[in-house]
């Protein structure tokens, strides 16, 4: 049964696969296959994919879902396609961005040149929720703080790719990106044979190499561990998966201790074993009851002490979250200019800082048209989507903002791009974003594509996994400009 795509496109939105004149060149082989298969066969393949995900045990917990810690990871089988040429440019932009961010963080915990040169306000640091005084006057190996960064990107209606935000604390999603690809190879093997779809498989070895490079002890096989909060954490699957793929131990807080020599040890049946690098998936607050929240049972007492002594590497470093602030985000183009002397390759989303009186005035007058975000929440929580909100909600936010303007930013409602997504009937457009991952060690590397997150509900812009969003595979496809049917 042939698919009719003539009524698919939505006005005002850019679709990643379907342009105004039909399927986009990089997506043509895919679209032809989808049309050829028809709705029933597609649903069949979707079911097969879901079964595989269940069998493989790929889970993600949604906290509001009660005790369901074995909730299957939601994936839609129609991938997002990015032409390789566009990707190469994006990749360069991401590397530039993360490089500047790390220089900023290192500076802010060190000499704070950027503040002295008046290119960044001191008050912003003083009032920053994630700035950690415990990390001042210390330089971690290679000056890298945010070894792993997940920068969320969105495409607006005019086709421009923007960076929406940088996640520098404990960004997740990379394992799901890899699992999506694994499942997709079984769903559409024919398409992988006929096109050049760039692989995503070597992330675990890149990750391990980066982690090993941070080791304080020069050795052939440094002891690397993945520190997880445990099985009840939403991304536990990812923690376990990465540990297994890298061939390193997965530990929880009580498995580690800091000895009298300020070194970190792991409790094994052979006795204590020295640990060199901790890839920690626990937030700063809970990382070390000696340095941060004393009531945390998840962390390791003395970990920060060992880190400052240079006896253990922490990835990402504590305190990296200072740049995870949405107000700091607005300065990133300035960081690129200040630290690198370059113009940003990738644009920020135009943003109003509510702490600025003029901007505040504008924001309050246009709440209904804007997206308001708190400076330091993640997962899409605590934000207001103006066009979709009631008067009461807007009024409530107006109060919140005025009470604490430093901690709110506003952005125009972007016309997020869409990708065809299976529904009960024909595939329909659903809004997506993209989270590539950038690894910084002795060099900077970017995952090929990244995790595409999709809002499963029609018209919704909320793609976050923690709020029930779904995902798609991301294909970076080599094309020749003079396209010929394959």
């Amino acid at each position, binding site marked *: 049964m042939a698919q009719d795509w003539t009524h698919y496109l939505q006005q005002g939105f850019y679709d990643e696969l379907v342009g105004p004149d039909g399927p986009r060149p990089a997506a043509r082989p895919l679209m032809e296959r989808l049309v050829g298969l028809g709705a029933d066969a597609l649903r069949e393949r979707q079911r097969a994919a879901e079964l595989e995900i269940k069998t493989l045990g790929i889970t993600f917990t949604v906290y509001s879902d009660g005790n369901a810690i074995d909730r299957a990871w939601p994936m839609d089988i129609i991938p997002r396609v990015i032409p390789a040429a566009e990707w190469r440019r994006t990749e360069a932009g991401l590397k530039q961005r993360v490089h500047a961010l790390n220089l900023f963080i290192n500076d802010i915990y060190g000499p704070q040149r950027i503040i002295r040169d008046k290119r960044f306000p001191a008050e912003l640091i003083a009032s920053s929720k994630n700035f950690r005084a415990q990390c001042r006057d210390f330089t971690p190996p290679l000056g890298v703080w945010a070894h792993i960064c997940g920068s969320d990107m969105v495409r607006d209606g005019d086709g421009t790719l923007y960076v929406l935000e940088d996640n520098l604390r404990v960004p997740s999603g990379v394992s799901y990106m890899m699992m999506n690809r694994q499942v997709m190879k079984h769903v559409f093997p024919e398409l992988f044979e006929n096109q050049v779809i760039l692989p995503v498989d070597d992330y675990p070895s890149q990750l391990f190499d980066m982690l090993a490079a941070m080791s304080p002890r020069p050795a052939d096989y440094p002891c690397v561990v993945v520190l997880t909060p445990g099985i009840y954490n939403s991304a536990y699957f990812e923690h376990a998966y990465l540990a297994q793929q890298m061939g390193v131990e997965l530990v929880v807080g009580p498995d580690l201790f800091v000895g009298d020599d300020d070194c970190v040890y792991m*409790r094994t049946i052979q006795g204590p074993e020295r640990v060199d690098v901790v890839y920690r998936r626990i937030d700063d607050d809970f990382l070390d009851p000696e340095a941060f929240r004393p009531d945390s049972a998840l962390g390791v007492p003395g970990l920060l002490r060992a880190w400052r002594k240079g006896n253990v590497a922490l990835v990402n470093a504590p305190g990296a979250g200072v740049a995870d602030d949405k107000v700091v985000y607005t300065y990133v183009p300035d960081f690129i200019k200040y630290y690198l002397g370059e113009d940003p390759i990738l644009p920020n989303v135009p943003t109003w800082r509510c702490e600025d009186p003029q901007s505040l005035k504008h924001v309050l007058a246009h709440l209904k048209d804007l997206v308001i975000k708190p400076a330091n929440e993640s997962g899409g929580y605590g934000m207001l989507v103006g066009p979709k909100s009631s008067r009461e909600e807007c009024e409530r936010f107006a109060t919140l903002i005025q009470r604490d303007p430093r901690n709110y930013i506003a952005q125009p409602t972007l016309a997020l791009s869409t990708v065809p997504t299976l529904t009960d009937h024909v595939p329909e457009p659903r809004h997506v974003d993209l989270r590539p991952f950038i690894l910084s060690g002795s060099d900077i590397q970017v995952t090929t594509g990244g995790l595409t997150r999709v809002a499963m509900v029609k018209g919704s812009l909320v793609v976050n996994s923690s709020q029930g969003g779904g995902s798609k595979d991301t294909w970076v496809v080599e094309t020749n400009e003079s396209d010929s049917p394959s």
Partner: protein
Amino acid sequence: MLSRMAENMYWFARYLERAENTARLVTVTTNLILDLPRVVTPDWEPLIDITSGRDKFVERHGEMSEHRVVQFLLADRENPSSLISCLTKARENLRTTRDIVPAEAWGQINRLHLIAQEQMGDALSRRGRHESLQTIIGQCQMIVGLLDGVMSRDEAFEFMRLGRNLERADMTTRILDVRSGDLLAEMPADLKAYGRVQWMSVLKSMTAYQMYRRLVRSRVSGVDVVRFLLQEERFPRALQACLKTLEVCLSGLPRNETPLRAVAQLRRMVQRADIAALAHEGGTLHVYMDELQLKLAGCHDAIAATYFGAELAPNAAMAAGVTPPAPSSSQAQTQRAG
């Protein structure tokens, strides 16, 4: 291997074994009751003592009726050693060690957990009990068989075997302790035959009857049964056999001096025992069994201290762990919290 993983594997195996043994105990006792005249009916009380749940049971139920005891032993979640509690804990322990055991084991323990819940209604009634408990026992054996067949003999495997055999040894001594007490007492002549039936049930509660008969060709006698279940190295549920396996497991592990010494001591004690003399009087045997259990608990302590880091973390002196048994009853060991 992480201490925590070793501990989880150990307790996974212990709880699974405990579940299987509990199911077996209940089904055998049920059958025994059908064989005996009313006047000799053993009550269900000994089972409470075998699983050392007396205090908990009295607190919650009081009356030692069949219905209440079976409910307590199989379905009561407030009883940390009930069948359902054991299966739940076995499953939880396997959840975090999934990556180091064959994947099918996780699927199987999940199924077993579900089946137990489904079958519980039947298990509580006398009519459906045998079949439902046989199903559960079968599922336990399937998991053990699966792991035995496809798991490498690595450290994870050895800790699992340690746990299983320690639990098995523990259960053997408990059953003997509780049952032999009343069985060795003098029986009136006309009920001597029923004494034999009861000894047979002791054997059957460890699925040992057939193997016993193959070895001991004469009639079932109390002394022979005690000797078989304590000293027969070739029967896997006999105490000496379990201890021998513990030695084999420990030989494959690092830093094993302390635990090995504890096991060796216990082995010598069992080997030297003059069962006939001990069995002559119920009281002496009971004291001896108590000593065995103390030493077994000591083996567990040595393993926990050496491998599970019990001594490394100052705040690891957890409760619910290893209290020395009171003279006439011994505590069922449970995994420490956290």
